[in-house]
Each structure stands twice: as structure tokens, then as C-alpha cells.
């Protein structure tokens, strides 16, 4: 297991030292959400109604921006070969890298979301729920995304293909993320059910993602 933590720590150090990927994702998130009220006009009621959906969809797209680099950097400098030859199974390599992506991209995006909620006149009661659903839902984005990143590793300009492959897999996370928020703010009850399903999707992605990503990486190595 020590290899897992070593790799996780290295990827986090790289993410924060290079900063480009995290900064781009946060900047993209900010700009998309900030532009929306400009396009829709100053209808506060409309904005607050669509705020959770907009925040979630923009978050998915922002997280997607940094996914293509997940394995690409290690492939380009030859690290991936050595990582694959270590005593740690490739599944754990994929898991460590996906976890590093979640910590360095998923969590900052989830924490930025309530700030952007102000721009969209998000209801006051929805803030804690929004952050909670995003923290519970974003692991699925990183772990399912790692499968797409591994599959498109050797595809030139694979970013768009990655989006096509991976976005449909995000639909359940999106649906239950939104429904948990609207259950908490509008309806009586129902929040727990949606939130638990959202968490279950993330937990399933935690298991399935690394297995599938490692299988894809094995095809890409030669």
C-alpha cells in the first residue's frame, strides 16, 4: 500500500505545484456560471430556479477539462511504463491517480460552487445541500472519468472523444445530485433517498473505475 500513498502524494504535489489544471478548471467554472445571467437577463426568480442545474452541469464540464491529462503526462515522460512494472497492481495506480484528481479538482470545484451560487441567486437553504451533494457526487466524476482518460490515452486530441464517452456516464450523478437539492429545498422529505443513491453511485465508481481504467491502460501500453 505504501506505493499507493507515494503515488497519490506525488500527483497532489504535481497538481498544486504546476497548478495549471486546477486553475483552468476553476476559471472555466467561474466564467461559465458568471456568463449565464448575462445571457438570460436579470430575472432573479428564473436564475434561482435553474441555479442548482447550472452549477452541476458547469461543474461536470469543468472537471472534464483536466481529465485528458490524467495519464497522458505519465505516458509522455515514460513514468507510466515504470509505474506499470512496479509491484503494485495497475488497478491501484489508476485508483491513486483518480483519487488525486478528485482531491485536486473535484473538491476545489465543489467548494467554489456556493460562491458561484451567489451569482445565480441560489436559495439560502440550498447552500449546505449543494456542497454536500457535490462532495458526495464528484468522486464518480473522477473515477468514471479515469476510464475515459485511459481509453483515449493514445488518441490524438482525445479530449472531445473523452467528453463523448464519459458525459453519458455522468447522467445518474447529475440526476440524483439535482433531485437531492430540490428535495431538500422544495419538497417534504426525499433528500435522504436521493443523497444515498448519489453516494452509492460514487462508491460503485470507486470500485469499477480503477478496474476498467487498468484494463484500458494494459491495452494502451504496447
Amino acid at each position, binding site marked *: 500500500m*505504501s*506505493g499507493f500513498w*507515494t*503515488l497519490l502524494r*506525488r500527483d497532489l*504535489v*504535481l497538481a498544486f*505545484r*504546476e497548478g495549471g489544471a486546477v486553475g483552468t478548471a476553476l476559471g472555466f467554472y467561474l466564467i461559465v456560471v458568471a456568463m449565464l445571467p448575462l445571457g438570460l437577463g436579470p430575472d432573479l426568480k428564473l436564475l434561482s430556479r435553474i441555479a442548482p442545474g447550472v452549477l452541476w452541469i458547469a461543474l461536470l464540464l469543468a472537471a472534464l477539462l483536466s481529465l485528458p491529462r490524467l495519464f497522458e*503526462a505519465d505516458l*509522455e*515522460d*515514460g*513514468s507510466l*511504463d*515504470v*509505474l*506499470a*512494472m*512496479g*509491484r*503494485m497492481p495497475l488497478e491501484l495506480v489508476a485508483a491513486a491517480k483518480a483519487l488525486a484528481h478528485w482531491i485536486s479538482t473535484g473538491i476545489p470545484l465543489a467548494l467554489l460552487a456556493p460562491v458561484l451560487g451567489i451569482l445565480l441567486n441560489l436559495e439560502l437553504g440550498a447552500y449546505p445541500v449543494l456542497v454536500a451533494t457535490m462532495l458526495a457526487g464528484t468522486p464518480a466524476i473522477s473515477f468514471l472519468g479515469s476510464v475515459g482518460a485511459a481509453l483515449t490515452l493514445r488518441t490524438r486530441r482525445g479530449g472531445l472523444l473523452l467528453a463523448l464517452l464519459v458525459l453519458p456516464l455522468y447522467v445518474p450523478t447529475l440526476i440524483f445530485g439535482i433531485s437531492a437539492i430540490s428535495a431538500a429545498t422544495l419538497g417534504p422529505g426525499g433528500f435522504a433517498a436521493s443523497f444515498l443513491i448519489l453516494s452509492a453511485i460514487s462508491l460503485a465508481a470507486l470500485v469499477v473505475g480503477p478496474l476498467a481504467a487498468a484494463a484500458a491502460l494494459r491495452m494502451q*501500453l*504496447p
Partner: protein
Amino acid sequence: MQLIADNLTLMRGARTVIDRLSFRAAAGDTLLLTGPNGAGKTTLIRALAGLLRPSAGSIRLDGGAAAIEVAEQAHYVGHLNGIKPSLTVAENLAFWRAYLDGSGNPHDVADALDRFGLASLAEIPAGYLSAGQKRRLGLARLLVARRPVWLLDEPTVSLDAASTRLLAEVVDSHVAAGGLVVAATHLPLGLARTTELRLGALSPQAGGER
């Protein structure tokens, strides 16, 4: 300890690069892979490293840790060095030492850097190194974790004469300590004990029993 390849057939895409090659390399020996471009040196090394699955034949290590795959008992230094430009020289090496489980290894990071003449550069981000220095940092990985088998693909690329001699010394002392080295190279390395395996380009009888 012996590295044994038996009737090895390797394909790149639809093309057969190595056809039914058998050879043995014993501990205390350096096997030099030579041959023209396209003869399959890199392909063979990658197959030995477990990064390319043979389409026929087998690779095994006699007398090594039987339960562990050859790849896990080997170091592989390919054309790329596996270096992160934003980590310092020492951090790069420390990462590989920890990842490859170099604990209990006689050489620590400072030792390995010193051996390859990088000690004064330890705290510099690796991105600032020259091509030859990067190569030496890639090769320093050989020393921070103990592996009986070293697989080196063109290890002398971008090294100057002094560094090439240094590499030869490091390889010789590994071999003298009972290690096994397989190196693909165009240039004479100046090694003490070598056996040559010549790979022919595209000929159907490439290699053959040595």
C-alpha cells in the same frame, strides 16, 4: 539465476518483429542486443519488461523469486527517463525509491545522485537539467531500488564520454555482484563482460539459438 527466453515471437501491430527467438542470459553477464534500426531491440526489451505481451513463447527467470513476475524483478530504462520537470532532482528520485520499494537498499537517494554526478543539482527542478543530466537522473533509478535484472534501452543516448564510462562502471559492478543486464545499444559501452545477441532486421531467422 538465468533469464530464459523460449521461442519468443513478438509482433508490433500486424508485423512480426522477432520470430521464434530463444536465448539464455546468466547472472554475472551483460547481454548486449545489437542490430540495425528496426531489428526489434526495443520491442524485445519491452517484452522482457512485461510491457508487451509475446504472441508466442515465454520469458522466465530461473532462480529468481519464482512467485514474482520477471517485470517486477527488473529495472527498465527506456528512451524516456520518467522525470517530472516540476519536481526537484532529489524529489524525482525519492519518489521512485519509495514507489519501487527501495527500503533496505544500500544506496539512498543522495548516494545514487552522487554516483551519477548529480549531487550538486539535487535541489534544482528537474526541468532545468540538460538532456544528458536528465538521462543520468533516469539511470540513477537503477541504484535506488534493488532489482536483479536491468533492462536498458539505448542507455548511452545523450551521455558524454565521462558519463558513459560512469554507466559502464555501474553496470559492471551490478554484474559483478551477481546481477544480470540486458542492454540494447549501437555503441560499445566498454563493459568488462559481455555477450552479444545480434538481431537481424526483418529476416525470418532473426536471432536464433545463441
